[in-house]
């Protein structure tokens, strides 16, 4: 009777060990897949950043061609002290798996109001503004009809910040310069994504290496 109990318990222990081994292997495979996914995302984002920057530089050259070299040159950049329109926030996750910081881009944010990148991803540039800021000289009271086609979401504050940052080149700038601005803005978002993906990649790489070392040991 005692022998049977001992055999039963040893079988149960063996089964438990096998289950733990299977679980361990599953976790290893998950980490490897996660590492490969993050590596793939990293390479894709690098490629995307490269092409976005190339597009931005060419659009800037095109704007210079259109507006003239005297209107687009480094001598016009504003050296006066002003608060940053865009900032980077670093938060730390308490996740057991991914115990790593996370970067969030806060675009076109004044010191009082912040716009997280999630909200800003919903905003797209619209050629018609439905509420331009009133100037001290004269009033603009007419309503502008909506454009045809798919409706576009406009953030008036973001549009004003974009226009303000371009104002160092003049108030009436070419659409090519606005396009260049958007390209560099997209490149900045991509850079932050690359930083986050790189952190994930390095973290999962460490985990995979530890598991491999543990297996070999």
């Amino acid at each position: 009777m005692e022998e049977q109990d001992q055999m039963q318990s040893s079988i149960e222990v063996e089964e438990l060990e096998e289950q733990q081994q299977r679980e361990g292997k599953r976790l290893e495979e998950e980490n490897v897949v996660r590492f490969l996914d993050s590596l793939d995302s990293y390479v894709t984002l690098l490629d995307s950043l490269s092409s976005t920057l190339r597009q931005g530089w060419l659009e800037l050259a095109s704007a210079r061609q259109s507006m003239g070299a005297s209107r687009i040159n480094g001598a016009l950049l504003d050296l006066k002290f002003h608060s940053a329109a865009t900032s980077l926030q670093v938060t730390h996750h308490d996740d057991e798996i991914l115990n790593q910081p996370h970067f969030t881009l806060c675009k076109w944010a004044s010191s009082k109001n912040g716009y997280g990148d999630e909200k800003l991803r919903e905003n797209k540039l619209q050629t018609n503004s439905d509420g331009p800021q009133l100037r001290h000289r004269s009033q603009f009271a007419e309503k502008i009809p909506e454009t045809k086609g798919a409706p576009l979401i406009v953030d008036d504050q973001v549009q004003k910040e974009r226009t303000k940052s371009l104002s160092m080149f003049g108030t009436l700038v070419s659409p090519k310069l606005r396009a260049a601005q958007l390209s560099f803005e997209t490149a900045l978002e991509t850079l932050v994504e690359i930083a986050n993906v790189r952190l994930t990649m390095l973290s999962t790489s460490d985990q995979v290496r530890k598991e491999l070392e543990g297996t070999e040991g």
Partner: protein
Amino acid sequence: MYGFEALTFNVHAGYLEAIVRGHRAGLLTAADYNNLCQCETLDDIKMHLSATEYGPYLQNEPSPLHTTTIVEKCTLKLVEDYKHMLCQATEPLSTFLEYITYGHMIDNVVLIVTGTLHERDVQELLEKCHPLGMFDSIATLAVAQNMRELYRLVLVDTPLAPYFSECITSEDLDDMNIEIMRNTLYKAYLEDFYRFCQKLGGATAEIMSDLLSFEADRRAVNISINSIGTELTRDDRKKLYSNFGLLHPYGHEELAVCEDIDQVRGVMEKYPPYQSIFSKLSYGESQMLDKAFYEEEVKRLCLAFEQQFHYGVFFAYMRLREQEIRNLMWISECVAQNQKSRVHDSVVFIF
């Protein structure tokens, strides 16, 4: 009705017309552009340009070259040609030649004022000014706080003084006021140039009317497109349009209320000379509009050389050289950025 220019023109301006026609023959051809578009580096561009009239200006430039260096040296060629013609010219041709540079003068004034507002060093700004638009007291512009001081301290003794009457205020200079000042000055300059050419009469008046009207119309379109989505109101936009040109006055009324590029297109397509320009663009697109306008301008400038005994050839030559320099700037940028596939986006062939 022409005033028998053939009898008297060559007495005072025959030599210079021959000079400017000789300069025209030195403009780059399509074969030159094809060679330049195949260059791999900026040094290759310098090598190809060494066989052109730009050769002496670039030969001493050390490697590695920068795109701005190529543009600066090529501009020197234009400036030398201009100064030679100006010092040989008598009235009224000398005044006509001076008028050609007032646009650059306005650009330089705005550059200095804007840069000063942004707390940039005046010497740095002066280096960026166009050489054709320089005048003696230009550095003093950095002292002015508002437009009234700008006028009183500096511009009252310059050829731009008469153009300031419409924009003298005591308001402080800010980005919007500077932009309005730029466009108001340019509008006044174009109108004054137009009146001067009309006074000259004959073939000069006829040819320059066409060229300046096209310039005024193009400015109106660019102002309309660039002001879409900005704080500029419709009334202020309309005030920046010139009081002549094919679009004046009905086209201007319609352009003032346009809210997107398609509405601008709708207005311009009512005018037959501009239908061909906008027919090259797809709906909602404005990227190729500049090139289309430049191509039309080049066509009209080349036609100016088909007639003799008028001053339009001098204006046409200066503008064609400027277009050539723009072409060289674009080609250099595409080569420097390794984007040769895009080189034909903005190059406008002259011949």
